[in-house]
């Protein structure tokens, strides 16, 4: 179910997608945004009340100009949880959303029950530089994001329209989304999480696509070093877009962890 929520402060209108009922599970999307083909959210919705908001600058969510750094983004999610009447929730975050989920869990340790970080951003290792996602040509992206760049799912997510008008619209929308992401990730996707991650109290699952080329699995070690209760699992035959590439396996792991 899609709804538009106006936050109390009236600073943002937020496009929120909700699936199922039960304990709340907040899903924070990555830099690419929610694409409307997230079958894994429906699957998770069979056991939880899944809440997937668009970050301002994405979808129909407004007020992107008010979010300029990690602190603004964390505050935004706090306000949204208040608005939705969610005192505490499980939080699943992917890539940029993984970084924000970790920040959320570090900022208010009572607000996040269990934390799932899927190929999260947030650290930087000189030994394993993260490729420049923003400079990647559209033709190069599939190889950066997918285990099999020629797979049906890669083609679906990377589809570009032939019609020039539609192509311009797509380009404008993409620029708008990624412009928001640049405020949190440009030019190096590291904003000081290493100072704050020690505070994370929620039991944490790190999930990685085994062949992730964008954020290599070497980064899992950094998260494990900083987060007290933290386990790592990798899914084979998947890369950075693991939940799109292997939705069943992804949901199985997440559900097993959340129901412990």
């Amino acid at each position, binding site marked *: 179910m899609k709804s538009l929520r106006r936050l109390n402060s009236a600073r943002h209108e937020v496009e929120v997608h909700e699936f199922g009922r039960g304990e709340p599970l907040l899903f924070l999307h990555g830099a690419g945004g929610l694409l409307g083909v997230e079958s894994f959210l429906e699957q998770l919705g069979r056991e939880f009340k899944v809440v997937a908001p668009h970050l301002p600058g994405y979808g129909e969510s407004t007020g992107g100009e008010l979010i300029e750094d990690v602190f603004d983004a964390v505050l935004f999610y706090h306000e949204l949880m208040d608005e939705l009447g969610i005192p505490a929730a499980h939080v699943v975050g992917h890539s940029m959303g993984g970084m924000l989920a970790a920040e959320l869990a570090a900022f208010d340790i009572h607000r996040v029950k269990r934390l799932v970080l899927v190929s999260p951003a947030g650290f930087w290792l000189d030994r394993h530089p993260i490729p420049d996602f923003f400079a990647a040509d559209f033709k*190069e992206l599939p190889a950066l994001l997918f285990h099999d760049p020629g797979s049906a799912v890669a083609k679906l997510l990377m589809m570009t329209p032939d019609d020039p008008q539609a192509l311009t619209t797509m380009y404008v929308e993409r620029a708008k989304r990624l412009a928001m992401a640049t405020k949190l990730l440009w030019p190096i996707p590291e904003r000081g999480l290493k100072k704050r991650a020690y505070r994370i109290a929620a039991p944490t699952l790190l999930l990685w696509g085994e062949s992730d080329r964008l954020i290599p699995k070497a980064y899992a070690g950094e998260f494990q070093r900083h987060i007290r209760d933290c386990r790592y699992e990798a899914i084979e035959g998947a890369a950075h877009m693991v939940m799109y590439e292997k939705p069943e396996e992804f949901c199985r792991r997440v559900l097993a962890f959340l129901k412990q």
Partner: protein
Amino acid sequence: MKFHWFHLMPYRFLPDDFKQKYRSVWVDIPRSLYDPKIGHRLYNEYLDQLEFADRMGFDGICVNEHHQNAYGLMPSPNIMAGVLARRTQNANLVVLGNSIALYNPPIRVAEEFAMLDVLSGGRLVAGFPVGTSMDTTFCYGEVPATLREKYLEAHDLIIRAWTEPECFAFNGKYAKLRYVNLWPRPLQQPHPPVWVPGGGSVETWDFCADHDYQYSFLSYFGYKQAKKVADGYWEVMARKGKELNPYSLGFAQVVAVANTDQEAERDYAPHMDYFYNRCLHVYIGFVDAPGYRSANSIRAGLAGQVTKSGSWKREGLAWRDFVEQGYIVAGSPRTVVEGLRDAIKSLRCGHLMMLFQIGSMPPELVRKSTELFAREVMPHLRDLWPGHRDRWSPKRLPLEETAVAAPLDLQVTRAGNKSGPRSSAGRIGEVVK
């Protein structure tokens, strides 16, 4: 009509297979391709050319700022303008310009421009570009989404630093300064003329119109393709009820003059090819970082300075196509007079910034083209805008109040230095290999 001699200072010796072997002339071009010994000769050769342009009667000599590239070797154009201030007397120093969002605090730019203005006796044009996506977001790591806001704040701070009579506090979002108190302050009052070089962002037109700044459209795709941008600019000016003064618009054009059209093709074609296929070989992923252009500018589909520069667009174009499509205005003096008259009239521009040193072009050809232009082209185009007053050129000190550098032979020379420094007039090609 005002004519300016514009140098990019490209690296002239990229390998022949550069385009096949490397993805970009900008941002991540291998440093090993730059030989500092050649660079030493090149800087001196290029400065000689700008000084020659001064002596040939050009109204301005232009330098600009680019980073991490072989297209233009001036990370700091102010250094070049500083050198030129001492060895030129007539031409204005058109620094096009400093990418003001890159400097924190931006009063650094206010200070250096004030220094140049004082040093040159009020010959400075202060250029405030936003800067290309390659330079600002990729090389200097600026967040694209906030670049323009930072630029606008830097602009406000610099103008206040130049004009406010007393020390003041500045509480900006990006720069916070308790004491802003510029020493030296600029010679030109209230401040040097501001020109805004742009690549075709629609916001820049409004900005120029609102502040009465000159807008300089810098594209190397020629006057025929620039028509859309110039029309857009004049539309904004008309809508805002501004004076449609040609001198408020500048345009950059590649120009090459020879004795005949055939000679122009023979002499200049390889260097033009080098310029368009090596100097402008920019990886598409660096051209337009997300957020660098507004949605309006993307929709307007206007080409940026190098945004249309993917050299793939020009695949297969030959000399004749470049000339016919207006990328370059080249040929005999008569051909160039006609081409430029057409360009100037159709764009309605009062300032022409011309690139004479094109790509790999060696000094003797640059000199020939410059000289022919000054003697046989410029005089025929001087009076194209009668009745319009140029309010965007520097107001320099009167000659009798202008200090000049002492002649070299009056200065103390190092004992025993009989041979003296070598002039850079020799062929650089000789030192390669």
